């Protein structure tokens, strides 16, 4: 991507729109990550603070505010450093340096999180031994839901049929991968693997996401079964599953676009539009996630208010000691395969359950299939 960049000293970078266009793909995720981590303490359940179960009133104390303040300062410093490194890398035309900026920020904010967690540990409060369970089965989706879920697969199958009908229009050799500057850097040949491979990748990806979407709706724990918190939690699960279905459509449309490009080699790929679409999609996702909060904590007034119960905090009904670094949950005594994350929003695997390892194996397999197809069908020249 840097080969076609005009030579320009870093001093005049601010006046160079091409340089800005090249920096944007790195700067945008860095800024989004910084914003997300800034809001991280606000989007967890009120009785989970930096992955530690605490009394809900704790977050209003001076100590809690001090921990948040320090965490946010560190996030700003590391994000600023990451941006500066990415900026210098693009200006110096060193393609690996901007990635180092992303790595700096990621490592920095993770370190800030772990430090904040360590400072929160002394305030940990034993969670309530009281448990709730709803007595109605989780509703199965209706016909409309089934149609919605089938959509991405229908798009991919439609694309495959279109390519089969226009097989002769596909050139013997065609580009399948492009740099950020729009220049192709990977080619494939007119073969079954070369033409249908990306569609198979899309199919596997969508099937994997679909499985997780189903898992969120049917295999996760309902932490609260009563009160407004329960309704907020149900809405949260639906939002999460909906986001995954939207992600399936996003991938299906990308792979569908790639398919169309094969039979219309005269068409240039719109990399800028693709990047803009990706950014808008991720931005909307961030806004939705921040507005819902973990477990629907921000969806209802009850979720936002302090939930003081005499037996102690409710949390997410998982014990603190089973969380490794506040990110990985390992509890073989917990029947749940998917549990609420304590780092970020959504659900994560319970690595104490064999089914979780099976799911992880499926994820790795779905990642390996594209690699095998790429090795078989994509050539650098």
């Amino acid at each position: 991507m840097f080969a076609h960049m005009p030579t320009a000293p870093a001093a005049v970078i601010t006046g160079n729109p091409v340089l800005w266009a090249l920096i944007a793909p790195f700067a945008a995720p860095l800024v989004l990550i910084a914003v997300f981590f800034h809001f991280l303490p606000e989007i967890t359940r009120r009785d989970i603070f930096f992955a530690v179960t605490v009394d809900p009133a704790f977050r209003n104390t001076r100590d809690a505010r001090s921990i948040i303040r320090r965490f946010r300062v560190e996030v700003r410093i590391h994000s600023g450093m990451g941006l500066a490194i990415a900026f210098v890398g693009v200006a110096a035309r060193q393609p690996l340096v901007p990635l180092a900026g992303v790595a700096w920020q990621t490592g920095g904010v993770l370190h800030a999180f772990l430090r904040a967690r360590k400072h929160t540990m002394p305030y940990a409060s034993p969670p309530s031994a009281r448990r709730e369970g709803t007595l109605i089965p989780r509703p199965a989706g209706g016909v409309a839901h089934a149609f919605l879920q089938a959509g991405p697969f229908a798009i991919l199958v439609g694309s495959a049929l279109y390519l089969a009908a226009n097989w002769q229009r596909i050139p013997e050799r065609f580009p399948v991968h492009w740099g950020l500057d729009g220049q192709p850097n990977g080619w494939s040949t007119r073969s079954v693997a070369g033409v249908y491979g990306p569609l198979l990748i899309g199919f596997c990806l969508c099937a994997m996401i679909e499985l997780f979407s189903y898992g969120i709706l049917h295999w996760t724990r309902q932490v609260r079964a009563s009160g407004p918190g329960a309704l907020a939690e149900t809405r949260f699960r639906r939002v999460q599953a909906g986001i995954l279905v939207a992600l399936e459509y996003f991938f299906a449309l990308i792979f569908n676009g790639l398919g169309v490009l094969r039979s219309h080699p005269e068409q240039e790929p719109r990399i800028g539009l693709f990047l803009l679409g990706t950014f808008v999609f991720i931005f909307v996702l961030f806004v939705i996630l921040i507005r819902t909060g973990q477990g629907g904590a921000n969806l209802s007034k009850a979720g936002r208010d302090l939930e003081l119960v005499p037996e102690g905090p409710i949390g997410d009904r998982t014990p603190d000691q089973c969380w490794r670094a506040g990110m990985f949950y390992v509890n073989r005594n917990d029947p749940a395969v998917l549990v609420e994350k304590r780092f970020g929003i959504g659900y994560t695997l319970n690595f104490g359950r064999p089914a979780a390892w099976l799911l992880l194996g499926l994820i790795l397999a779905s990642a390996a299939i594209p690699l095998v197809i790429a090795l078989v069908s994509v050539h650098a020249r």
Partner: protein
Amino acid sequence: MKQAPFIQIDLSSRVPAYEQIASEIRASLVAGDLPPGSSLPTVRQLATDLNVHHNTVAQAYRILAAEGWLDLRRGRGVRVLSRSNPARAAGNDQRNFDLQLRRLLAKAVAEGVSPTAIARQLAVHARHVKAWASARGD
């Protein structure tokens, strides 16, 4: 939106979890929150929600099935049955019930629950039991 029926258990209690689950579901059945023909969550789902072992929930379901409340036939999920009227309690069972109720009332008074509140709650539960019994023509 109407609140779905739910149960609460206390894992720090000396009463075994399966007994608590069975008691809570039984209370919902008597209160009419779970009409005949309605479905209960699967063993796996309720165990996940309560964070207890599958066997704990399965045992509670088996107790209720033995009492004639639930149908646990494989492949059909867990269904609430239209329970036929049980035989009149034997003298020992009646005395056991009285004893348990007296102990429970004494404990509540000792813990500071006002007699008015106790009487009100007893009246509420008595209404539920009567409604359940009259629905079955008892």
